[in-house]
């Protein structure tokens, strides 16, 4: 079962905390991780709009399979500049 490290930013950090480790079933992908987080913290549901994922510092899709040791970032819509 893969253990991944989660990093959340901005609004999502406020709801989910900045860092945590999560254990997921074998074969789980990034979308499954998000579903698990939303079940645990329903306030995150409202923050799905415009959400992007990154795996080990590269943007990835919700279909990306998780591997043990991955760092998964949750990136809400950007506001830099």
């Amino acid at each position: 079962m893969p253990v991944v490290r989660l990093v959340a930013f901005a609004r999502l950090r406020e709801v989910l905390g900045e860092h945590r480790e999560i254990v997921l079933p074998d074969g789980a992908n990034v979308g499954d991780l998000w579903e698990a987080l939303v079940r645990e913290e329903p306030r995150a549901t409202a923050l799905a709009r415009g959400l992007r994922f990154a795996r080990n510092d590269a943007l990835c899709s919700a279909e990306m399979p998780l591997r043990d040791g991955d760092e998964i970032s949750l990136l809400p819509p950007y506001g830099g500049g």
Partner: protein
Amino acid sequence: MLFEIVREPIDLRTIENAVLAPGCGGVVSFFGSVRERADDGRAVEGLRYEAHEAMARASFREIADEVRATMPEVRLAIVHRIGALNVGEIAVAVVAAAPHRAEAFAAARFAIDALKERSPIWKQERYCDGERLWVENRFGEERR
């Protein structure tokens, strides 16, 4: 060439010096600073920025690579500050140096537009009335 996320005040001269070259006669600098009023007119006390630092730096380098693909003589620097900023402080600086001014203008404009669209950086406005709000960049409509 300089691509950085910093926590200290931004010094424009240092950034300009990083891109200056004897063949570059035209330099365009853009900097964005914290305004005293939000777009809706509310009084702003300050901003707080955060970033996925590794991805943000990588996005700056990617933007510069794209600029050089069409304008190989352009030298570019992109620096964004994170943490707490007061009204009047510089949040972001883009400097483009080129032999001719048209390229320096085009490169600086492309870089700041691309940064707002694709660099993982977030801004929280902190209003004088105590409220705090994460503000997203909108596209097709300008915020700064």
